């Protein structure tokens, strides 16, 4: 933690970056995002195992961009998001200085997307063991049981769109959900609209989801919605052999094709 504070202080004092996006102490042991803009306030930064939120979503926000060049305190999920944002041309190769913090508190500066790529090649991360188990359990159920499971989960959705807001990949200025001509998905939270909304979200993140699980954590009613996007992402990985958040140069899987793409269900 000390190493992180010293590094942040140094970077801000030398003017290398204008803002450090990191975590600070919140209430009841919760860590919340903070935006450190002066060397003196670098003391606010904390780093421990509670720092799990994905901060990468702030990188594309206009109000944060206004601060100037950012450095970001990064766990592996943030690094994967960063790569995917570069791949989707939302960030320049060297627009962000990533401060990768290891378990033991050692800070590694990653100034370019290439450096992030090399760093991630050693420790990629991804879906947690618990989520993997849940996903495999669901896959083993019958189709009807899966339908019941998701209906029971999704009926609790209050359409607060916290999943959308917390997702680093949901940066569209105009979202399909807000489109009312035509009204693709109805506004109130009811069974049909909820099912449609979460299908749309998963489809729009297929081939783009970095599997950080942030949407699932953001959900105020505790629906494991990240399983949907993660599943769509894995479907892309399995069928087209590419994974979001692993390379800085990556074509959007559903925007590209190979003439010999193999499927077995089209008659």
């Amino acid at each position, binding site marked *: 933690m000390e190493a992180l504070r010293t590094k942040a202080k140094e970077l801000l004092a030398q003017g290398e970056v204008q803002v450090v996006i990191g975590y600070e102490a919140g209430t009841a042991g919760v860590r919340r995002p903070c935006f450190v803009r002066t060397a003196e306030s670098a003391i606010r930064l904390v780093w421990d195992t509670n720092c799990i939120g994905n901060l990468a979503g702030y990188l594309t926000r206009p109000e944060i961009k206004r601060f100037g060049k950012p450095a970001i305190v990064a766990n592996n999920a943030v690094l994967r998001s960063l790569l995917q944002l570069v791949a989707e041309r939302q960030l320049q190769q060297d627009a962000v200085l990533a401060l990768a913090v290891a378990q033991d508190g050692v800070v590694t500066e990653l100034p370019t997307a290439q450096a992030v790529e090399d760093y991630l090649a050693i420790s990629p991360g991804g879906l947690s063991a618990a989520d993997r188990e849940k996903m495999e359990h669901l896959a083993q159920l019958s189709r009807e049981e899966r339908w019941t499971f998701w209906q029971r989960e999704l009926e609790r959705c209050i359409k607060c769109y916290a999943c959308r807001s917390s997702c680093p990949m949901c940066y569209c200025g105009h979202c399909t959900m807000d489109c009312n001509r035509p009204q693709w998905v109805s506004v109130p939270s009811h*069974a*049909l609209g909820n099912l449609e909304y979460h299908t749309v979200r998963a489809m729009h993140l297929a081939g783009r989801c970095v599997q950080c699980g942030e949407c699932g954590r953001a959900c105020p009613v505790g629906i494991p919605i990240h399983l949907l996007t993660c599943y769509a992402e894995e479907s892309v990985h399995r069928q087209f052999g590419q994974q979001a958040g692993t390379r800085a140069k990556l074509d959007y899987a559903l925007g590209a094709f190979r003439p010999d793409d193999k499927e077995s269900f089209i008659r």
Partner: protein
Amino acid sequence: MAKPFEPKITAFVCNWCTYAGADLTGTSRIKYQPNIRIIRLPCTGRIDFMLLQKAFARGADGIIVSGCHPNDCHYSSGNYHARRRWMVFNDLMEFMGVDGRRVTFSWVSAAEGTKWAALVNEVTDAVRQLGPYTEYQRLIGAGVA
């Protein structure tokens, strides 16, 4: 006396192959079951999965999605893009528990009038067997479609 169940089938087809193929079926005087509502779109590349959702939300019991065979697209690559999208959507539907037997993807060319008739008959019979898609239609009552 209650009428026997007749399925509503929505077909999303591309203008250049399947629509022309369906036209050929008609001009060839081949008869097939009348349960189908054909919706013509410029290209399979235009057939968004949200259109399929809308069809179910409006009470369709079955859906057919059809376009040009690979390599035959009028816009050269629309069906390749569509195929990738269907591959992921099909997978996701399965994971969410949507009944995959109610959505049929197919390639029907402008020369395949008989294939179209056979496809529609086959799908209509299969969906008639399955019965109305109550699982989904129950959701419609819960709100505004």
